[in-house]
């Protein structure tokens, strides 16, 4: 029976089976969805819960989810240890400048790669892909030499300047993303602008750039997240504690805690009572929260942007 019958008969056996099948399918779907969602949310719930536990609660294995004597002390200690009022602003400054650099340069460069024919275009675009594939770690020594010759070590310049030139953290990926978008954009508007005597640069800034909204947003979110989380490059070039970025503080904090565990002097025992897992959890959350807030605000637009990036030809 391929087509639903038109006559109004009493509900047939087949229909009942079909409905049951449907219901079963839905049930499985939702169980899977919730299970998978749990995998992602569980670390956050775990961290959140532990960040409110006192030392006795942490040590008490029977207390898993609900702290017996909640405390805000961990958050205060974590904020102090992270030096959050300084490091947060530093991170904000570097992330916003570097993201701005990516958005500006990558959209511009990608346009050149998409709309103009010039000798060596294929090869040069291949080199864009090359710059994505080459691991930054293998270049760290020559890069460090370069920056120390330029006298940039200890400043934020190594993190910011390359992004304005289409390089930096995953710069090539953004060039690729913007190129995909331009490929899907019909050239007629640009041709019309050219007929009206608009120069290529004028056309780009007045017509093309304002239309990149959704790709811009996706790139913004990704670039922000990647720069905010990065601790490898800042760790290489920024050695002055005053200039530390927020996520840079975490590795040294974790190290400090590991030492506390090994050391058994009276002093470190007292420290261990004060700085326990709860403080680490609070500190880790403090580092993530700014990103989460940004994402909560942009989530809906981000989704729409994803659906319209034009990644599909």
């Amino acid at each position, binding site marked *: 029976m391929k087509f639903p019958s038109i006559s109004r008969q009493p509900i047939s056996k087949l229909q009942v089976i079909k409905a049951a099948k449907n219901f079963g399918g839905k049930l499985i*779907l939702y169980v899977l969805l919730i299970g998978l969602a749990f995998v992602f949310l569980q670390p956050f719930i775990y961290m959140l819960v532990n960040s409110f536990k006192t030392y006795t609660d942490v040590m008490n294995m029977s207390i898993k989810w609900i702290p017996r004597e909640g405390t805000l002390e961990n958050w205060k200690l974590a904020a102090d240890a992270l030096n959050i009022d300084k490091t947060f602003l530093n991170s904000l400054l570097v992330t916003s400048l570097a993201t701005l650099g990516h958005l500006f340069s990558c959209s511009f460069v990608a346009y050149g790669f998409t709309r103009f024919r*010039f000798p060596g275009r294929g090869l040069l675009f291949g080199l864009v892909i090359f710059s994505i594939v080459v691991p930054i770690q293998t270049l760290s020594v020559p890069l460090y030499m370069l920056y120390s010759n330029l006298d940039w070590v200890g400043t934020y310049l190594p993190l910011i300047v390359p992004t304005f030139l289409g390089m930096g953290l995953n710069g090539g990926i953004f060039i690729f993303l913007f190129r995909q978008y331009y490929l899907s954009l019909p050239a007629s508007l640009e041709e019309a602008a050219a007929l009206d005597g608009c120069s290529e640069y004028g056309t780009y800034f007045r017509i093309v750039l304002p239309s990149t909204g959704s790709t811009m947003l996706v790139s913004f979110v990704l670039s922000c997240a990647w720069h905010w989380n990065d601790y490898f490059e800042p760790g290489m070039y920024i050695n002055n504690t005053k200039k530390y970025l927020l996520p840079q503080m975490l590795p040294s904090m974790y190290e400090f805690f590991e030492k506390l565990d090994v050391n058994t002097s009276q002093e470190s025992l007292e420290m261990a009572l004060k700085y326990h897992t709860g403080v680490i959890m609070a500190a880790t959350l403090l580092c993530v929260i700014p990103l989460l807030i940004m994402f909560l605000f942009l989530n809906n637009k981000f989704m729409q942007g994803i659906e319209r990036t034009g990644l599909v030809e």
Partner: protein
Amino acid sequence: MKKRMNGLRKRKALVGYGFIAPWLIGFGVFCLFPVVYSLIFSFSEIKDPTTFSFKMVGFKNYLDAFLVDTEFLPTFLQSIGDTAINLVLILFFSFFIAIIINRKIRFRGFFRMVFFLPVILGTGFILDQILGENLQEQSITLVRELLLSEDIVRTMPAEFLEMIQELLNRITVVLWNSGVQILLFLTGLQGISPSIYEAARVDAAGEWEQFWLITLPLMAPMILLTVVYTLVSGFTNSSNEVLEYILEIAFEKNQLELSSAMGWVYFLFIILFVGLTFLAMRKPIERASDR
């Protein structure tokens, strides 16, 4: 007339170079220069670390990487194996998740947001901690509380428990690493026109047939892109063991030349592996999406 065309073409080409000029400078200074330098390092021996005076020694560092250093090759092979296994799992899970969050489900906004958490937190130290710190503990409790009762656990062989734990750990790692891939697949799914599915339904194709005959072939190019992305990000992310080892050689053991040579071996391998995968997959995928 022909000459004018050429003139126009030349002007267009110049404008094109104008657009990519920032990248040309950036690439030259921040990529090509260090690449050339590390290539020179890999073939030389540094005489004086303060002035970086060096002499060429040919392939000595490369031979050392394989013959003298006993840890490099095993780490290298381990990393290849891990990346290959993760690739399959990541593709499977991200495709699956993309399909279910593309359906009409309740609380779609909420689920989408949860599944995109890895995009936001998918890099960096925090992720390493989330995955490393409480992973062991988590999966043990998960096994015990959700799947099995205490009595059964006690009677089971330890190897089997370890296997389950290993499996759960890997799935957690894979899920947390598949953020961008879910995103890519979702874009692909959004790009398939609903009218194709409607036509299929008129022809009485079931959901299963629709998946195999429409979704999969049309998603083929996106699958290729995702495979390449997954391989590249798997080989180059900061928690990759080979890269960690290379850094250790460079900064803790101060053997810049050796670490450069290892870096090049590793890099050439990535290019080869990704390139071959791409070429091997391209033909069948083109055929599939033509059908």
